[in-house]
Structures are given as structure tokens and as C-alpha cells.
């Protein structure tokens, strides 16, 4: 479904992504792991159009989407959530989702249509239901808990009706209990919406529990790819993780 | 609008070339002193001191009063700088530090209010009248003649002095303990506080230093520029242009940009006298469009 081939990116001489080739099949749940500075977030940024690719290709269903604008990539069905929850502080939870749905419906530039319409509100309510966030609908986003902000962030990505959902460290900054609740939410949504899901994660317990496939990056290059079982037994991965970078995980 | 013949003629004559180049330098160097303070404050405190021209004015008025009593140009320049510096520290501690890290509009308004208040205070103290300090006797000399061009001794002195002050400032920021603390605090102020250093004190001193630079420019120029309440306004706009072109936070950038501006004006007065201001804003716009961070600062805007 999504395939990237020979992707390269460097910043003023520092290589951030080095000749990475990966394949994500439809409906799969894959994770990307690697030490800090391995180029995981850069990879996300290259796929979603936030950064321009130096060389290499990104393809979605055999269509070349390399270096398209963020908006066009979103329209093609790839959306993402962020490492640090990335929301709209002055809007309420429901308004946030409504805004995002408005954008999906391609109504964002309608000058004279009232934002608060019944259809949009119903759509947002539905989404709130799925996210189990109904109780928060009229709370200003900057006032909800960190965990809720992260769920909302994912909700925003989900509201665009993506084929592929990319999550950058969905459990970062959470306590253990919250983490597992988040993992459950993610798995539930993945199944419910029949998504292709790609996520970056540091918590190995989570990674090995839910991933179908794991890709390991190091120094911008792909170190290994495979099922959790294969990765667990991969000599190079073990070395990498037992090496000096281990602390950083 | 453009008279290129006049330009070519001028640069064909040594005297004309000397006259215009040195006048570009003198305009540029005094501007640099003011702009270097502005850029320094922005670079470290991330605050745009819209009231910077006020300190130029205050420096000039302090120098004027000192000169009345002492008749000493250098002493009055020193008092002008010191006065502006102390006034700057007062402004920083009491007013502008209250809006650090806030909306730029808040900073703008605090500065605007401060300009209004200070201008009126100057009127109350020194009168609405324009005042001339007069050229000190030691500089009442015939101009130097270089290749037929004229260079007044006072201006030669000012160019050199401004350059020295500029270099000392750069050294102060890059080489001394004060400089390294300030730079570190600019990067990570909580960390530096944790080391037991009183960051607000250093910020205040730095702000005072920036204001003193504007003040000394005003004080040094006082003999040849008439003093009026509100005189800081014109110089403020020009030093903004310098700061934007040179890159906010870069003192060497300010130096180069100030000289560019000085030369634009001195060459412009021969070649395109009616378009000098328009050209200055145009240069600023072009820099902002193609390299918003300024010519001498690396990186791209947020």
C-alpha cells in the first residue's frame, strides 16, 4: 500500500535519512523503533510532506506522492498525530474535531457558511463517541489532561478518514496505566476503521505486544525489518540496543 | 529620478568620492552604535526595544546638560552613555521585564507608552525648544583635506571612536565572563539560574548596556544635531532597518548594514536624491522577502 524506496535526506551535511526502503501493506500495524536521533521522526516528516525529500520515492498504491504538499498528502489519505500533542489551545474539544471534519469536507474556505451546523456537529459527536471523549466535548483544549490531548490529537488525524494513520510516540509522557489504556484505544481504532497503522514507539513492551511488523532504524539507515519474533532474535539489533545507545532508549 | 551621470562624475573625482564615502561612514557609524544596542537586546532578551530611540535622545540631553557645566565633550559623552544606561536599567526592571515572553503587541505598547511619557518629561525638563550644544572648541578646526575632499576632524574622531566602542562591545559579549553568562542565559535561563547566577540582574545590565550604546551615540552627535523632544523617532526607524538587514541579534551584521545604509544615503544624495528613503525601505523589504533572518544570521525564520 505505502512503499518508500531509497529515501535520502540530509541537513547541511548531517545525514538524517540514508537510503531507506520500506513497505507497509494494507491493514497492517507496523512500528518503527530506534535510538534517539535514528531518524524516525524525519522519516515521518518526509512521508507526510513536511520536509522535502533529497532523493528517493514515496508511493501510495503505486502512485508517486513524493514531495507533494502536506495538504495533498492528507487528501490522498495519509494523516498523522504528533510526538508532543499538537492541538488548538483556544478551541473546545468538539470544535477542534468539527474544524478538522470541515477541512475534510473541503469546506474550510467557505466564507459565509456558519461553522456551527447540525450536520457537522453530529459528525463530530459520532467521532467523540468513538474516541470515548464525549464528557469533554465543551472543554477548552488547553484545559484537558495530557493523555486526553494525545487522544484528541489522534482523533484529529482520524477525523480526516485516512487510509494510513501515522502516530509519533503516542504514549510519550504518560504513566504506565495511561499507556496501556492508550494502546487499547489505538488497537481498537485500528480494527474499527480498518486502518494501515504505523507508529513510532520507545516502549519495547508495547512495540512487541501489538506490532505485526517492526522496522529498526539507526543513524538514518534501516537496520532490520521483520516480525516481532525475528527482530527479537536479530543479532545486529541486539548489539545496537545493548551498545552505547541503549541508555537513550 | 536617477542621475547616473552625476554619480559617475562624482566617482571620477577623488574629492567627491572621498567626501561621499566618508560622509557615508560617519552616518553609518553613529547609526551602528544605536542599532548595535537594539540588536544586542534582541539577540539576548528576544525583546524588540521599540523605545530605543528614546535612549538616544536621553543620552543627548544628558550630554548637553553636562556640557553646560563642565565644557568637556568627552565627559559629557560619558555621562550621556551612563545616564541612558541607568535609565535603560530602570526601564527594563520596572516596565519591560514585566512583559518578557509575552505577545509582541504588549511589548510594543509598553514601549510606545514609554516613548510618550519620556518625550513629555524631556519637554518639562529641557523645554519644547530645540537646543544646540555647539561644537566643542577643541574640534573647531579646519577640515582635513584628503585628495581634495573634506574630512572634519570631529567626524574622523567619531568614526574611530564608534569603531572602538563597537569592537569593545563585541569583545565584551564574546570574551568576558559577563558575556558568556549572558549568552548562556539567553540559551537557557533556568539552567543558568540553577547555577546560582542572578539572571535578571545580568539581563538588566545587558539591557542597560544596549541603551548606553544608543545614549553614547546621541551624546557624541549632540554637538552637531539639534536636540528636540521626539528626536529619537527618526533614528529608531533607521536602526530598525539596519537591524533587519543585518540580522536581528548580530552586531557585526549591524555594522555592515549600518555602513550599507550610510553609503546608500551618501551616494543617493548625489545619484537619486528623492528616492533615498524609498530605497532604504525597498532594501529592507527585499532582505525580508529573500532572507528574513537578515544577511548575517544563519538559519530560517520560525
Amino acid at each position, binding site marked *: 500500500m505505502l512503499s518508500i524506496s531509497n529515501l535520502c535526506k540530509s541537513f547541511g551535511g548531517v545525514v538524517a535519512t540514508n537510503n531507506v526502503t520500506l513497505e507497509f501493506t494494507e491493514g497492517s500495524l507496523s512500528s518503527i523503533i530506534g535510538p534517539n536521533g535514528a531518524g524516525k521522526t524525519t522519516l515521518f516528516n518526509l512521508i507526510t510532506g513536511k520536509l522535502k525529500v533529497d532523493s528517493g520515492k514515496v508511493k501510495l498504491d503505486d502512485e508517486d506522492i513524493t514531495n507533494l504538499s502536506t495538504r495533498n498528502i492528507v487528501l490522498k489519505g495519509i494523516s498523522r498525530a504528533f510526538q508532543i500533542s499538537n492541538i488548538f489551545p483556544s478551541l473546545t474539544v468538539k470544535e477542534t474535531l468539527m474544524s478538522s471534519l470541515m477541512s475534510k469536507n473541503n469546506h474550510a474556505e467557505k466564507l459565509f*457558511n456558519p461553522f456551527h451546523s447540525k450536520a457537522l456537529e453530529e459528525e463530530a459527536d459520532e467521532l467523540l463517541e468513538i474516541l470515548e471523549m464525549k464528557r469533554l466535548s465543551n472543554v477548552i483544549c488547553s484545559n484537558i489532561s495530557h493523555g486526553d490531548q494525545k487522544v484528541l490529537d489522534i482523533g484529529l488525524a482520524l477525523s480526516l478518514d485516512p487510509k494510513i494513520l501515522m502516530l509519533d510516540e503516542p504514549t510519550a509522557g504518560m504513566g504506565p496505566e495511561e499507556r496501556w489504556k492508550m494502546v487499547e484505544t489505538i488497537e481498537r481504532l485500528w480494527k474499527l476503521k480498518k486502518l494501515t497503522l504505523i507508529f513510532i514507539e520507545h516502549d519495547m513492551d508495547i512495540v512487541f505486544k501489538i506490532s505485526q511488523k517492526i522496522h529498526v532504524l539507526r543513524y538514518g539507515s534501516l537496520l532490520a525489518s521483520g516480525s516481532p519474533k525475528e527482530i527479537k532474535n536479530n543479532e545486529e539489533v541486539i548489539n545496537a540496543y545493548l551498545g552505547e545507545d541503549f541508555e537513550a532508549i | 529620478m536617477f542621475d547616473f551621470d552625476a554619480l559617475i562624475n562624482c566617482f571620477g573625482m577623488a574629492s567627491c568620492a572621498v567626501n561621499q564615502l566618508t560622509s557615508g561612514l560617519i552616518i553609518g557609524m553613529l547609526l551602528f552604535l544605536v542599532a548595535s544596542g537594539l540588536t544586542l537586546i534582541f539577540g539576548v532578551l528576544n525583546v524588540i526595544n521599540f523605545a530605543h530611540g528614546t535612549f538616544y535622545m536621553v543620552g543627548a540631553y544628558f550630554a548637553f546638560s553636562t556640557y553646560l557645566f563642565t565644557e568637556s565633550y568627552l565627559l559629557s559623552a560619558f555621562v550621556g552613555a551612563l545616564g541612558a544606561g541607568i535609565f535603560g536599567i530602570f526601564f527594563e526592571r520596572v516596565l519591560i521585564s514585566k512583559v518578557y515572553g509575552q505577545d509582541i503587541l504588549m511589548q510594543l505598547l509598553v514601549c510606545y507608552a514609554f516613548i510618550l511619557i519620556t518625550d*513629555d518629561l524631556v519637554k518639562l525638563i529641557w523645554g519644547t525648544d530645540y537646543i544646540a550644544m555647539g561644537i566643542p572648541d577643541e574640534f573647531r578646526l579646519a577640515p582635513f583635506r584628503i585628495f581634495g575632499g573634506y574630512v572634519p576632524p570631529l567626524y574622523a574622531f567619531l568614526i574611530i571612536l564608534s569603531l572602538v566602542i563597537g569592537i569593545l562591545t563585541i569583545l565584551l559579549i564574546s570574551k568576558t565572563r559577563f558575556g558568556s553568562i549572558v549568552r548562556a542565559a539567553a540559551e537557557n535561563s533556568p539552567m543558568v539560574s540553577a547555577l546560582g547566577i542572578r539572571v535578571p540582574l545580568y539581563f538588566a545590565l545587558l539591557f542597560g548596556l544596549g541603551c548606553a550604546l544608543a545614549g553614547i551615540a546621541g551624546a557624541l552627535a549632540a554637538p552637531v544635531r539639534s536636540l528636540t523632544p521626539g528626536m529619537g523617532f527618526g533614528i529608531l526607524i533607521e536602526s530598525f532597518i539596519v537591524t533587519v538587514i543585518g540580522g536581528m541579534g548580530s552586531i557585526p551584521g549591524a555594522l555592515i548594514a549600518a555602513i550599507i545604509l550610510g553609503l546608500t544615503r551618501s551616494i543617493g544624495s548625489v545619484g537619486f536624491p528623492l528616492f533615498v528613503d524609498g530605497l532604504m525601505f525597498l532594501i529592507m*523589504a527585499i532582505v*525580508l522577502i529573500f532572507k528574513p533572518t537578515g544577511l548575517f544570521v544563519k538559519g530560517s525564520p520560525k
Partner: protein
Amino acid sequence: MSTFTLFKKDISIALFSVLFLILIGFFVEHPWPKDFLISIFSFGLLAMSLNMLIGFAGMVSFGHAAFFALGGYAFGLLLQSESFLTNFGALSIIVAFFVSIFITGIYSAVIGAICVRLNEIYFAFLTLAFQMFLYSVIVSWVSLTGGDQGLMGGIARPVFLGIDLSNSLHRYIFCSVIFVICILLLRILNKSNFGYSLRLIRDNQERAEFLGIRVFRVKLICFVIASMVASVGGIIMTLFTSGAYPEWAFWTQSGEAIFMIMLGGISIFLGPLVGTVLLRLINDVVQMYSSHTELVTGIIIMIVVLGLRKGLVEYLLEKTGILKK
């Protein structure tokens, strides 16, 4: 469903306001309230449209008054042109009105296309640079604009549809209607889908992009609309003073508009309008009782900024518990 039915409430408030303003015109003999209100209409539109940039979209412009001036100058110049007046006769005012807004729209689209790519302080400085550039042009193009003396000799105000704009009552009513229409337009834009796109951009431009918002386009549209509304303010001022002046394009005019916004509060829709009224009153009252206008105004600003740390309207609403934050 049409926009009219959907914004029923806002439209009825607008109708009511027009009615109220017209009643003032008819029943208050004293000319002062009309003069006062016309200047509020004019500068109010400048402040309200600037708040569409600053408050709705988070684009801090230091050069918004350029469009106010451009609208005023275009309108004044058209109505001073003999050939324009003979061509359009009684319709001159209406044609000049729309043409001036249109010219401002085109100009702001060009300036906006260059400026809106930049963020925050760089956007602010670039708009300032363009404003000062326009100011330089106005001041040095003496043969067209009259330079620093402004458009001299008054502008023609031919009667149309029985409306005679040299009559102060007619002029007042005409300006009130235009003013309310513009405010209603801003209100609708604020509450519309587009308004929420602006909020998204203001709050978090990067995330808005990842929601598929065309940030550049939305910002540019916002910039152009705000500029056109500002030009209406300039047109009202030109009608009122029967001239146009380069001071309108000077940066202090933008600065004053920013102050009006901050005085009222950027997060309340009508805050800037209240700010405009307050600034005018402060100005007038201080002028009457003190010769140190600058000192007193400066101190008042300090108190608002450092004491309240928000607009007066915001402060009062929060104090009274109507607005919770």
C-alpha cells in the same frame, strides 16, 4: 439554506443597530454625536479589520493603515477627476466606492502574496516596510497626490438616488449603513467555516496544515478582505474630511489601530470597536484638561498594559464572570 437564514440573529442585531444609529441621526440635533460617530465608524473599521488579522488569524501586521490610506486616496482622487465625474455623473460616488475597494483589494493581494509567507515578527516588519514604501510614494508623487499636503480643494459629492453626501445627516446615515454592513460581514466571517480556519491557523499553523488547510490561501484571503474593509474606513474618512492625507499611511496610524485593539481586547469580537471609542474619549478628555496629552496618554496605556494585562473589555467580562478563561 442561505446565509441569511443561518445568520438570522446577527443580521437582526445589525438591522436593529442601523435603525438605532439612524434614529440618533434624526433625533439628536446637536452635531457632535454624528461627527463623533462618523470618526468612530472610520477608525472602528480600521481597528476591526486589523483585528481580523491579529485577533482572528494571529497575523500581527504593522502596516494595516496603508490600505486605509489607499482606499481614501483612491476614492478622493476618483471624485476629483473631472472625466470620471462626467462619465459616471450621478453614480460617481457609488462607482468610486466600489472601484476604490477593488483597487485596494488588488494591491493588498500583491502585498499579501509576498508578506503572508513570513511569520510573526518578520511578517510585521515586512508589512511595515510596504506601508512606509507606500507613504514614500504618496509623499513624493506630488503631481498626483499633492504630496505632504494631501488632496486639496475638497472632493465632489454629486447627489445620487436622492442622497446628498454634503448634507451632514445624509452623510451620517450613509456612513452608518456602510459601517454596519462591514461589521456584519466581519461577524459572519468570524463565525463561518473560514473564521474557524483562521482560528486553526492562529492557534497552530503546522497542525492546520496537517488537517489539509491551505494555509497560504486562507491567510491571503483574510489579508485581502481585511485590507478591503480597512479601505472602507479610509473612504468614510475621506468623505468626512473631504480630502485624504499622507499621515494615514504613516506607521503611527497602524500603531494607533493596534492600540485601539489592545485597549478593547483582541479576543472579543467588538472589543476593538470599544477600544476605538475609548481611545477617542481618552484623547478628547485629556486634551480638554491637560496640555500634557502625551504624558497622560502614556500613563493610561501603561496602566492598561501592565495593570490589566488584557483589553479593558476582556478584563471587565472576566471580572464579572461572563467570560471564563
